[in-house]
Structure formats: structure tokens, C-alpha cells
């Protein structure tokens, strides 16, 4: 596989898994939770390194899941103490992120080849330099393998619990009254967000992963009124943005993750203007349809 090939595959995997998870983030009205978790996974990664003295895939995943769950749990807990939801989120994720920054800036962190710049922006260019060998597949960049793994987990969870995600997103009250474990599902979902985020971490970094999580899903929402179609569109938009982003970056020789996030913005702009259902232009052409009684 060529150098550019690996980068595009890696970026597409980011687009695919973020696109799927993003749909439910938006429908559950927790888009900002992506921002929170994308920052707190840093603490998870650093802590995992402190405990195991290793910076490898499985440890990072586990650390990130724990950090993500801790974030979700603390936000829930502050809320139960009558603190406003968004304030609770702001308090929790900045504090946990700060702890991560402090740890990373000490001698311990410096040994780990971790730095804040890398954590925030990612560096997809370096991904093909760190290859591992897997049975059956052969040589594959470590970050790509981890993303493929995360992508499978997300895909699996979305398919298996499709109707549970749907009902708990649409009407958690009904779901609870039917006996579904709404809170448990919430934490499972937060774990999925954490897994996706940490796997995308190396490639696009903590800030750009928010763009990949939210923007393709928000664009897809403009095109369809069906959940299944929204999931397919959102993940396709993610993949398209990833590839277009790479092409832009190669063309004008600039940051790949920056270009990818920019491409998601372009997709959104196009959707916002041209979508037949909710688009700006369609709104001018066709007068608002009155709701029938």
C-alpha cells in the first residue's frame, strides 16, 4: 500500500465511524458532549501510560473509555445537584483536560512522546511510519488497525442495538416506562463516543474529531427524514470529506486534518444551500408548506 493510500484509508475510517456516532450525538442533543469527551480522553491516554508505561492501542482504548465514562458520570452527577447541564459539562471537561495537560507537561509525560500540540491537532502524516504486523492482514499502520477495530465496534453496536438507540434518542421517557435501561445505554453510548474519539486521536486530534463527529451528521440531517438514510449519508459525508480533505491538503501542501475538517464544513455549506427539504434555496423556490389539520 502506498503512503497516500494508507492516509486516505485511515482518514476514511475516521469519517465512517465518526459519521455513525455523530448522528446519535445530534439526535440525542448532546453534540457538545463530543467536545467534552474529545478533550478528556487526553487524561485517559496519559493515565493509561502512567499505569502501564506503554503507549499502545489497547491501553489507550481502555484509558479513553474510562475517561469518557468518568466525564459522562461527573456531568450526570453535577446535574443531579441542580447544576445546569451545559455548565456541568464545561466544568467537568476543562478540569479533566487540565489534569491531562499538567500530567503530560511533567517529566512523566515527556518520556511518552506525547505533547499537547499533537493531542489537539493530530498528525496523520506520521501514521504510515509506525507499522505493525497482523495475522492475515499483514503490515498495517498501528493507528489504522486501531481505527478499523473501533469502526467495527461502532458498526456492530449501532446495528445490534439499532431500535434501542432510536427509542432512547426519540423518547427516553417512553423507553424507561417500557423497562429499557436508559441510563446504562447512555453510558454505553458514551463509551462508543470515547472509543471513536481515541481511535481518531492520532489521525485528526481532539479538536478536529469534533468536526468529524458533528458536521457530517448535521449535513445528513438536512437531506433526509429517515434515520437509516441519515446514518448512511452521514458516514458517506465523513468518508467524502476525509478524501476531499486529503486532496486539498496535497494540492496546496497544508495540514491534512485541517483540510479534512474544512471539507466537512464545505459539505455542510452545500447541504445547507441545496438540500431539497431544508435547504436555503429550496426555501426560496417553494413557499413553506402549511401543516394540514
Amino acid at each position, binding site marked *: 500500500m502506498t503512503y497516500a493510500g494508507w492516509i486516505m484509508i485511515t482518514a476514511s475510517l475516521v469519517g465512517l465511524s465518526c459519521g455513525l456516532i455523530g448522528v446519535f450525538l445530534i439526535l440525542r442533543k448532546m453534540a457538545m458532549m463530543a467536545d467534552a469527551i474529545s478533550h478528556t480522553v487526553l487524561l485517559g491516554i496519559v493515565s493509561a501510560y502512567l499505569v502501564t508505561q506503554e503507549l499502545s492501542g489497547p491501553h489507550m482504548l481502555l484509558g479513553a473509555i474510562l475517561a469518557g465514562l468518568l466525564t459522562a458520570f461527573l456531568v450526570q452527577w453535577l446535574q443531579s445537584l441542580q447544576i445546569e447541564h451545559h455548565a456541568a459539562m464545561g466544568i467537568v471537561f476543562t478540569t479533566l483536560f487540565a489534569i491531562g495537560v499538567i500530567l503530560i507537561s511533567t517529566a512523566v509525560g515527556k518520556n511518552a512522546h506525547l505533547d499537547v500540540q499533537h493531542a489537539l491537532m493530530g498528525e496523520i502524516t506520521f501514521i504510515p511510519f509506525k507499522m505493525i504486523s497482523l495475522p492475515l492482514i499483514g503490515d498495517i499502520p498501528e493507528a489504522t488497525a486501531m481505527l478499523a477495530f473501533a469502526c467495527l465496534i461502532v458498526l456492530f453496536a449501532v446495528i445490534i442495538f439499532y431500535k434501542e438507540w432510536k427509542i432512547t434518542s426519540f423518547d427516553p421517557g*417512553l423507553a424507561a416506562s417500557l423497562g429499557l435501561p436508559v441510563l446504562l445505554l447512555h453510558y454505553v453510548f458514551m463509551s462508543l463516543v470515547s472509543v471513536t474519539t481515541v481511535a481518531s486521536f492520532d489521525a485528526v486530534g481532539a479538536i478536529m474529531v469534533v468536526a468529524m463527529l458533528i458536521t457530517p451528521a448535521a449535513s445528513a440531517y438536512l437531506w433526509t427524514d429517515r434515520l437509516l438514510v441519515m446514518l448512511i449519508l452521514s458516514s458517506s459525508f465523513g468518508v467524502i470529506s476525509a478524501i476531499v480533505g486529503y486532496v486539498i491538503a496535497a494540492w496546496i501542501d497544508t495540514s491534512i486534518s485541517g483540510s479534512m475538517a474544512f471539507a466537512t464544513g464545505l459539505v455542510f455549506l452545500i447541504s445547507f444551500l441545496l438540500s431539497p427539504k431544508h435547504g436555503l434555496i429550496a426555501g426560496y423556490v417553494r413557499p413553506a408548506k402549511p401543516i394540514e389539520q
Partner: protein
Amino acid sequence: MVEPVVEVKNLAASYRKNIVLRDVNFCVQAGTLTGIIGPNGAGKSTLLKTMLTLHPALQGSVKFFGLPFKKAQKRIGYVPQRGSVDWDFPTDVLDVVTMGLYGQIGWLRRPKRLHREKAYSALTQTGMAEYAERQINQLSGGQQQRVFLARALVQDADLYFMDEPLAGVDAATERAIMNILQQLKASGKTVMVVHHDLQTVKDYFDHVLLLNRTVIRHGQTDQVFTKEHLAQTYGGTMRWMREGESHVVFAHDE
């Protein structure tokens, strides 16, 4: 004595540090249609949510068919206020009604044709069959309410709780909903409805529960729904008009 369908003892609940319900005690018998009446902020919705463990209780116990909620869950249907969900959610009417069956369908299974047929027949009951494939963001308020009612009917519960099902709906929907509630009652099911329109109470409900932070009065409509008890429930925010024999009540209820 027959065991009551609902038995609430010493129930209390708070909302953002304010106690909204205290010393709530009542029993409801099978086959009754009860209207829960009270001013704004009286805790009507909170009472339903607390009974169904959607809101934490500070103290007290609630039993359904002599059992705690968890064990009676399958026999209980709940219709939340229609404003409690996002009607822009990407799904259609039949799908929303099928959600009422998700508890029965169980984990790792998908809704089958049988479930969709059940959902479709519930929609027929509420007069919404022709809208089955409509996106839910294209429904009027009355249609949304009928969809919610169909979703409760499909659960085939023995006891129903409904939060303001008649709020902001058109006259045709109001008639359709009340017809269905009467049918439910006639088939031996028990229904409790949060209601806001005092003028229709006598026509619609055989039992009334007057609520203002606690139970003011509870019993058969002709005995409980009186001028004195209403004044007790609503305090001074009410005026009276006499129309022939019956009292017409106007409550300042935004």
C-alpha cells in the same frame, strides 16, 4: 375489598430543591376513568412521573396491582406530554407507534410484520391509519397526540397514565380521544388523565383527583367536583359564573 389498581402512600417529591408533592395518598379501583385536576405547578405531571419512577421520590411507596412498578411495568402504559419529544426526529408515524412494542420485542430482535400490523391497527383505532407513512414532522398537534395515543394502545396495558392528552388539540381529536378512553374504561381498563379544562370534567371523568401539592379531594366526580373543593384547590385564582343549574368554572390556567 378488591385490591386497588393503584395505591399511593405518603408520596413526596421535589423539583429543583422545592418540594412539589407531599403526603400524597390515594387508591384507584379498576375500571375507573380519573381526571387529575389542579392549578399550574400543582405537581400533576410530577405525580405521574414520580409514580412511574421517571422522577425520584423523596419518600413513600407506590403499588400497581399490589406490586412495585418494576414488576407491574408490562401492564402499564404511559402517554407523556406531546411537547416532551422532538417532532423533527427522522422517523415516520408507523415507526413511532411500533416503539410502543419495543419492550415486548426484546433485545437483539427487530420489529416484525406482526408488530407493524399491530401498530397499524392501533393507528386505525385513533383514525390515523392513512398517515402511517407520514414523516412525524408533518403532523399537526392533534395528529401528534393521536399518534401518541396509538403508541400507548399498542402496548395493550391494563392501566394507562396520560399527561394532558387534550391540551392544544382540535375538537375532532378531543372527541376521538375521549371515545377511546371510554372504550378502554368499558373494557375494564383503568385510566388516569392529567386534565386542564374544568368545563369538561363532569362529562369526561367518573372520578376526580383534585391536586395542589397534595391530594385535596379524591372520589367520584359528582361528590368531589364541587364549588367548595375547587376553591380549596385553586385558591383565589378562580371566578364563578352561574349558568342555569350548573356551575361553569373559569380558572386562570395559562
